[in-house]
């Protein structure tokens, strides 16, 4: 490494050796998301750069417009700092919609804590937490983006970073975020964080592994066997959580498998799926679509790689559900499109719910045919927001993975979609999803749209139940053990369905 240089990150001076990659500076100094993991593929880590840096790379020439390049826009992950430079990150997306737990179902009160208890859901994209008192009253809630996103939007990119030596750093970052959230909960409730004497933390297997600082390498390749499936109680000190006292109990609910995590165990617990005899499917639509089928006292589950299209990554103008995102699209009587933008301002991009609506509308007004070909490419949704032919292909891959997963799961139990009485949709996406449009584009089977229940953040609700009724901790353990995993990779039924459902 050469001499030390000074760069200004949003006017803050930072000293680094010449030749340092900007992404390394950003990862320690900011939380700028790099959805593709900093590989120069997604084009989402745009920053303004002036000063002594490398020339734009091939990737940047491909992903950035002439105008952007001319005005100093760069992809943060491609920039090498050679001398003094100024970097400005774009305004953080404000007002992001994060769904926290809904109303809890009835439970037998038997708190896991004495003074105050906290429930936390570590989502791949967002973190959500809630604070309760022994009467079961919700005292405070807080949520934020998962800071691990600087190592990628999806779990594979993050596990790759962990394998490349970032494991301790990832653990430190998530532990700090959770510690801060515990402080915020206490502050909002007007108590001290040290009065929080028990915590339940749920999340998928990878998220819990990062928190635990467990090796995720076995989850990066087939046969995807996790080192640890949790279902245990440790202490705050063990997990490096500050705020509550070191000996504070922390319950980590059990995962069913490498890609069917504790968040799903918790979602099933809070959904009421078990207390009813009816055949039902629960689905969490995210980068990984996890789904559970309950039928005749049996539980079947699978996980399908939908990719992050519905979270905005991989879509040319995709973004998360924050200000400036097109979140609703509908057809006017003359067959043209009309759209709503979050924050009632100029449109900047399109989020998952808007994407589902937009594709459904383009199908309806016949701009898009059933094979996924756009009559005019790109299709304008609401200027400047548009969808390209490639974007449509990404949607096809994502929706087909979810839909085919559901059909395969239902088929594995010897049933057809007609036999399913109810579809539960967990996760933030469900709250904003137009079910008619979801069925129209084939994200869910047509037969399942008639009886849909939206659960909100069911993982957080489940964690809250485990906190407020400790007897359920045994139930959730049995539940996770009972779940039968239906393997989709190398499954010929899934492969066939996946092709079939790619059409609209």
């Amino acid at each position, binding site marked *: 490494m050469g001499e030390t240089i000074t760069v200004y990150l949003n006017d803050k001076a930072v000293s680094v050796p010449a030749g340092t990659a900007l992404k390394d500076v950003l990862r320690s100094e900011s939380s700028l998301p790099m959805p593709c*993991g900093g*590989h120069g*593929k997604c084009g989402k880590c745009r920053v303004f750069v002036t000063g002594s840096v490398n020339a734009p790379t091939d990737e940047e020439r491909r992903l950035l417009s002439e105008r952007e390049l001319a005005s100093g826009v760069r992809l943060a992950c491609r920039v090498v700092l050679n001398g003094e430079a100024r970097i400005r990150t774009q305004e953080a997306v404000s007002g992001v919609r994060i769904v926290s737990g809904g109303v809890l179902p009835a439970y037998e009160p038997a708190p896991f804590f004495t003074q105050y208890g906290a429930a936390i859901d570590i989502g791949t994209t967002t973190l959500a937490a809630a604070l309760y008192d022994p009467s079961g009253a919700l005292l405070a809630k807080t949520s934020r983006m998962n800071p691990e996103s600087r190592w990628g939007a999806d779990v*594979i*990119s993050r*596990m*790759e970073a962990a*394998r490349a030596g970032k494991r301790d750093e990832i653990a430190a970052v998530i532990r700090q975020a959770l510690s801060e959230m515990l402080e915020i909960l206490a502050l909002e409730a007007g108590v001290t964080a040290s009065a929080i004497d028990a915590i339940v933390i749920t999340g998928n297997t990878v998220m819990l592994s990062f928190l635990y600082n467990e090796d995720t390498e076995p989850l*990066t*390749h*087939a046969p995807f066997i996790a080192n640890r499936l949790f279902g245990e109680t440790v202490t705050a000190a063990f997990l490096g959580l500050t705020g509550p006292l070191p000996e504070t109990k922390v319950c980590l609910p059990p995962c069913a498998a490498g890609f069917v995590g504790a968040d799903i165990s918790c979602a099933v617990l809070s959904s009421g799926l078990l207390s009813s005899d009816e055949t039902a499917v629960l689905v969490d639509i995210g980068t990984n679509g996890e789904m559970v089928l309950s039928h005749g006292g049996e539980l079947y589950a699978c996980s399908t790689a939908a990719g992050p299209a519905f979270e905005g990554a991989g879509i040319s103008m995709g973004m998360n559900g924050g200000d400036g995102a097109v979140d609703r699209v509908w057809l006017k009587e003359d067959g043209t499109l009309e759209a709503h933008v979050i924050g009632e301002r100029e449109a900047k991009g399109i989020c998952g719910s808007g994407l589902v609506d937009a594709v459904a509308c383009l199908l309806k007004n016949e701009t898009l045919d059933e*094979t*996924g*070909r756009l009559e005019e*490419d790109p299709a304008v949704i609401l200027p400047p927001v548009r969808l390209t*032919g*490639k974007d449509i*292909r990404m949607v*096809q891959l994502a929706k087909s993975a979810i839909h085919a997963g559901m059909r395969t799961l239902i088929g594995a139990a010897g049933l057809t979609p007609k036999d399913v009485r109810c579809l539960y949709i967990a996760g933030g996406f469900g709250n904003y999803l137009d079910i008619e449009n979801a069925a129209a584009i084939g994200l869910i089977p047509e037969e399942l749209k008639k009886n849909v229940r939206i659960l909100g953040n069911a993982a957080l609700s489940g964690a809250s139940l485990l906190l407020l009724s400790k007897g359920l901790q045994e139930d959730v353990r049995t539940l996770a053990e009972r779940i039968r995993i239906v393997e989709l*990779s*190398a499954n010929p039924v899934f*492969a066939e369905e*996946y*092709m*079939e459902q*790619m*059409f609209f």
Partner: protein
Amino acid sequence: MNTELLNEISLNLQQGKAKLIKELVQQAIDEGIPAETILNDGLMAGMNVIGEKFKNNDVYIPEVLIAARAMNNGAQVLKPYLAASGVKAKGKVCIGTVQGDLHDIGKNLVKMMMEGKGLEVVDLGSDVAPETFIETAINENCQIIACSALLTTTMDVMGKVVELANEAGIRDKVRIMIGGAPVDEAFCRRIGADLYTEDAASAADAAAAFCAEMLG
């Protein structure tokens, strides 16, 4: 020569009419059209059109697979006639998804496109050990090893394939092609593979060109 019939084969193949293709190919044989002509100007011509459309985003994975299914049906009928007239494959490829990775849709697409170019393809499936690629290439006299990966965490196995090929001293006889979502040109250079292609149709084009060059 009944070019109209060959055209009909090509068009119906593009639409994936698998059953009809069988009948049309049989009809062409009965009319005395040479098997090789039916293959080149009927079946493969149709697959070429699909390949081009796929490259241009006009059709997507399902259409390619359906067309390939029709192609297979036609090729089945044609096979004994091709063998009888001494028509040989234009080259041989062994293909697989690398160890630790089970994603095989992309690999299957490439395989079908390559078959559409008249190449013989040995399909090793998914989760294929690096040694298996090398052994197969040697034992089956392949001109090309084609590796696919969808995970950033498994693509490094491709580097291992290159290493083993170097050790086996087969790099002058066998070309190594790589592909898959996380793979790119820079990665290809880094591990020392011969060629990266962006999509299935380009992979098939390049493979056909390689084989033509190597087999003369």
